[in-house]
Every structure is written in structure tokens, then in C-alpha cells.
């Protein structure tokens, strides 16, 4: 059975978790606060003690059938002994029996260990408040959705992300035109001058993120960008305590194409912005060569909020670092018609009245 890690409070022995407000480990039972390094050392000291050996041979219970446990991992809660059945990519969760936060340390060892983690800066209440704020000012949002909307689930999740650094060498060619008009007594003339314009040079990118989890919708994850890497710290499992976490199931090699798409587009745009004083600019060819490319593995903090309305599931995400919220909302068709006909009527009446006033003057 894989290894679980729980961080215990040195004061009361309660399960302790990372607190986003104080950026320390904080015991929810006795409110004691600890530096992460202190707890790591304390935990190592506890683990150095030899364990009791009391072996039992019990054949009770049925064995899992072959293939039945594919994609599943079974853990044992260190606090209550309950069996935790989790997905093969789950890296942190909570015990379904005692509710204590647990971290599957085996998911983050060796080559699977993330290079960086951005700790949560916003807590659950902030996520709920941000969602309510997300509803504001949306006049086509059904009123009952706001009033009757019950958030079904709020999860703090560390999403595995690949960060790509690279230097791009670009060689871009454009066909451009300059157009001039003039006329004499009989004809109107249009002169079009054609040019071949070339721009070449270099541009650097750092920490271009690509979602490394198939469970997380890529569009939703990109909608809450950017994450600021300045707040990132070296990975320690303690940061995961109290939150959910997944290890990546999309490799860095598989993520490269997505990073390339974004880098290529931005490179072309950056060099196109240097082609000025032309009437039209049409890219003909672009050659982008990436050098010094490297990928790093990081965990980004995201609050996921689920809500159900009219039998439809709505998922929202909040950037756990910046508080930016994204998630599509339903539309009130009756309100759409009401606003369309209302504005059409009001504007038409105003235009008619104005034209009548001008006629009177």
C-alpha cells in the first residue's frame, strides 16, 4: 500500500494544514502556527522511531478482481485507519471517514516531484464571495440563478502545470502595400506600391503554462491566467495539506505543441508590430526556431466551484493566487427578448422624435 503523509500538530496531535492567510501551517484545533521547515524536521524525527510489529494473518474479505483496481489507489488513513480509495493521479485529498487532510507523498517523489508550487492566497470564503461577485452586473443572467443558486461543492485544488521557458528566433516575411489616391478633371487614380518586408530577431518567453491534467478543462484553466511566478516557492508536500492535488497525467512532451502554438502566435504578432506605415500587411511566411527550451513542473492553486441549476452543471474556477474567476453563466431568454425589444423601441422612438424636432426647426 502506498505511503500517506499527514502533518500532525506537535501541540495537540491534530491534523494540521497550510493556511493561506498566514502562509504557515496552522492547526485548526488549537490554532498553533508553525513554519513548514519546523514541521518537516519534527515529522522526520517522528518517522525515525521504529514501528511496532504486530503481524496478523486474516483472510477475511474478497480480493479485488483482476483489472478492477486499474486506475485506483488504496490508502490507509493514519489517523482513523479508514481505507481511502483514490484516483491514480490523486496527490492530496481528505479522509472520507475522519475528514483529516492527507497527502499521497508517493505521487510527488523522484521525477514526479514538482519544481515549484504557488501556495493558495485566497481561502474558501474568498472563493465563494468572488463567485457571487462574478454574478454582478450580468443583466441577462436569470434572476432565479442568483437567488436560488446553491453552490454544490467548493474544492481547493493544486493543478499540475508544465512551465516552458524558451528563446525564439524569428524570421518573418510580409507582403505590404501603400495606396495613394489622386484625380484630375477626367479620372480618379489609385496607385498601389507593393513591398516585400522582412523582420528577423529574437524574443524570450518564460513560464508559459500548459495544463498537465486531463481532469481540468484546458480552456477554464487558461481563462484564469495569468499566475505570477514571483510567488512560487520550492515544492514541499506540506503546502498540499488541506487541499486536493493531482499529479500530472499529460506529459511535458505532450504539452509542447500547445506551448508552441502560443509562443509562435505571440512571436509573429510582436514582429508584425514593427511593420508600420503600410496600408496593408499580410504575413507570407514565418520561421520560428526555439532555443534553450526547458520545461518545469509546477502546481498552481485553483478553487473549483460546482453548482447545479435546472439540472445543468456549472463549473467555475478561481485563480487561488490572484482571485480571478472564470465560468460560463446561463442566459435568460426572456430577458434577452425583453432587452432587445425594449432598447429597439426606446432608440427608435428617440430617433423618430429627434428627426421630428429637426424637421420642426
Amino acid at each position, binding site marked *: 500500500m502506498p505511503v500517506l503523509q499527514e502533518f500532525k500538530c506537535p501541540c495537540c496531535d491534530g491534523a494540521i494544514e497550510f493556511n493561506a492567510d498566514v502562509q504557515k501551517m496552522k492547526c485548526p484545533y488549537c490554532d498553533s502556527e508553525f513554519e513548514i521547515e519546523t514541521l518537516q524536521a519534527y515529522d522526520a524525527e517522528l518517522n525515525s522511531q521504529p514501528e511496532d510489529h504486530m503481524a496478523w494473518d486474516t483472510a477475511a474479505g474478497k480480493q479485488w478482481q483482476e483489472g478492477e483496481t486499474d486506475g485506483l489507489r488504496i490508502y490507509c488513513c493514519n489517523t482513523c485507519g479508514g481505507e481511502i480509495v483514490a484516483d491514480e493521479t490523486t496527490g492530496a485529498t481528505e479522509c472520507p471517514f475522519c475528514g483529516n487532510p492527507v497527502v499521497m507523498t508517493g505521487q510527488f517523489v523522484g521525477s514526479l516531484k514538482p519544481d515549484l508550487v504557488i501556495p493558495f492566497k485566497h481561502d474558501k470564503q474568498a472563493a465563494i464571495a468572488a463567485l457571487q461577485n462574478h454574478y454582478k*452586473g450580468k443583466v*441577462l443572467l436569470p434572476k432565479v440563478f442568483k437567488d436560488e443558486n446553491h453552490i454544490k461543492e467548493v474544492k481547493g485544488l493544486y493543478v499540475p502545470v508544465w512551465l516552458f521557458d524558451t*528563446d525564439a528566433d524569428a524570421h518573418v516575411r510580409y507582403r505590404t502595400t501603400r495606396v495613394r489616391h489622386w484625380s484630375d478633371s477626367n479620372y480618379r487614380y489609385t496607385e498601389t506600391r*507593393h*513591398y516585400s518586408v522582412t523582420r528577423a530577431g529574437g524574443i524570450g518567453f518564460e513560464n508559459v503554462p500548459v495544463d498537465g491534467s486531463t481532469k481540468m478543462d*484546458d480552456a477554464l484553466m487558461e481563462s484564469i491566467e495569468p499566475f505570477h511566478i514571483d510567488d512560487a516557492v520550492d515544492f514541499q508536500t506540506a503546502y498540499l495539506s488541506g487541499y486536493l492535488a493531482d499529479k500530472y497525467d499529460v506529459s511535458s512532451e505532450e504539452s509542447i505543441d500547445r506551448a508552441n502554438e502560443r509562443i509562435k*502566435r505571440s512571436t509573429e504578432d510582436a514582429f508584425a508590430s514593427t511593420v508600420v506605415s503600410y496600408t496593408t500587411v499580410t504575413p507570407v511566411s514565418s520561421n520560428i526556431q526555439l532555443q534553450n527550451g526547458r520545461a518545469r513542473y509546477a502546481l498552481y492553486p485553483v478553487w473549483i466551484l460546482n453548482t447545479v441549476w435546472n439540472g445543468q452543471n456549472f463549473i467555475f474556477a478561481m485563480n487561488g493566487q490572484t482571485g480571478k474567476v472564470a465560468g460560463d453563466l446561463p442566459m435568460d431568454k426572456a430577458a434577452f427578448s425583453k432587452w*432587445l425589444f425594449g432598447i*429597439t423601441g426606446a432608440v*427608435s422612438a428617440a430617433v423618430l422624435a429627434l428627426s421630428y424636432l429637426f424637421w420642426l426647426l
Partner: protein
Amino acid sequence: MKRKVLAPLLILMLCMSIWISASAAQTPAYVLDNADLLSQSEEIILEAKLETISNTYNAQIIVATINSTEGMSADRYAEHLYDSKNFGFGADRDGVMLLICMDSRQLRILSNGFANDAIGSYEIELIGDYIASDLTDGYYADAFDSFADQCEYYLDGHINGFPFQWGQNLVIALIIGLVVGLVTVLVLKAQLKSVRRQHRADAYVKHGSMQVTTRSDLYLYRNVSRVRKQNNSSGSRSGGSSRSVGGRSF
């Protein structure tokens, strides 16, 4: 003594009768159908209509048809005819004349004096377009009747103001309202969608890392196209600011 009084009276009456008959001979003409496009009855009806409109607005409305411009341009002939026949009312010779040239199938409209304020180049173009199809189809009486109506419309509008076009303005207002309404609700609908893929990585460009090492702007070739200015339907002013002549073919 009695004969001495009667003689000058008789002379005066004679002079008056001569003057009245001379005046009758100079009764303004409204229809000059040299190309013989109208029947006798059509000519009488048109004459009466043009006279009524002319007297109402103090501007002589004339319809003239000719077979040939005698080597002159249609514009020039229109001015020549208007001046040689001394058309127009009052010192400024206020009037509007429609000239139909059958050899070149051209129509010309000339407005003079006060009438030029009401029917300028733009209105001449509109009237020309309005009656051209009837002329093309050979419905000359209908075309001249429409010309008279159009002159009355613009002269009356100039003097008394044009009537407010409720139907036309309502349609325009509804179109503007619908466009504004649609744009507004589509913007409001777009507010509900916030999940979008990012197509660029602009936020992750290393600050100050961009360097352009090659800048080449190579001139290849040029081409020039020309379009002849349209003069098929033209309006021109001549004789100072009090006259406009324009027209088109039919």
C-alpha cells in the same frame, strides 16, 4: 366741346384694346411640343396644369420638346431656348424648364432664379431619374405630368416646408433601433461567457528580450488604376448662382 372730350377717350380706349390684345399675344407658353409627342387633348391638360402651378408659385414651369439641338450640346440648347424665348416670371425670370431632345434622347432640366433655390442640381438629378423610365417607355404625357408634380412638390416644400415623412422616418428609426438593440444584447450576452482559450503568450514575454536584428523593406513594383469620373447624370451651374442645368439620357 363734347367732341373734344370724346376724341381723346376713344383714342385711349383704342390704345387699351391694342395693349390688351398685345398682352394676350404674349400670354406665357407652358408647353412647346415641337417634336409632337403629345396629342391635342394631352397638351391642353398639361398646359392647364403647368399654368396653375406656375401661377401658384410665381415660377414658370415649361415643357419643351425638340427633334434636334441643331448642333449644340443639350445643355447649351436648353439655355439658348430659355433665354431666347424669354421664359420665366419677374425680373429674375423664375422658372423651371424640361427639355426633351429626341435625336440624342437626352432630357435636360433648367431651373432659374428663385426656382433654382428650390430645384438645384441635386433635385434636378432626382427628378430626371424619376421621369426617365416613362420617357424610355414612350409615356411622354405621364412623364410630363410627373415632372409637373415634382416641380410643385419641391417649390411648395421650399416655400411652405416639406411635410414630415412619417413612414420613411419610422422605418429608418426602427432599423437604427434594431441595430443598437442587437449590438447591446449581444454585448450583454458576451458578458456571460468568460471561458476562453488563450491564443497568445504575451503575458510571458521576458521583459526587454525582443531584439530586431534584420529590417528589410524592399520595394517591388507599382500599379496604377484609373476610373473615369461619372458625368452621365450631371448637374452644372451656369449664369452665376441663379441657374442650374442638368439631366441624363433616357
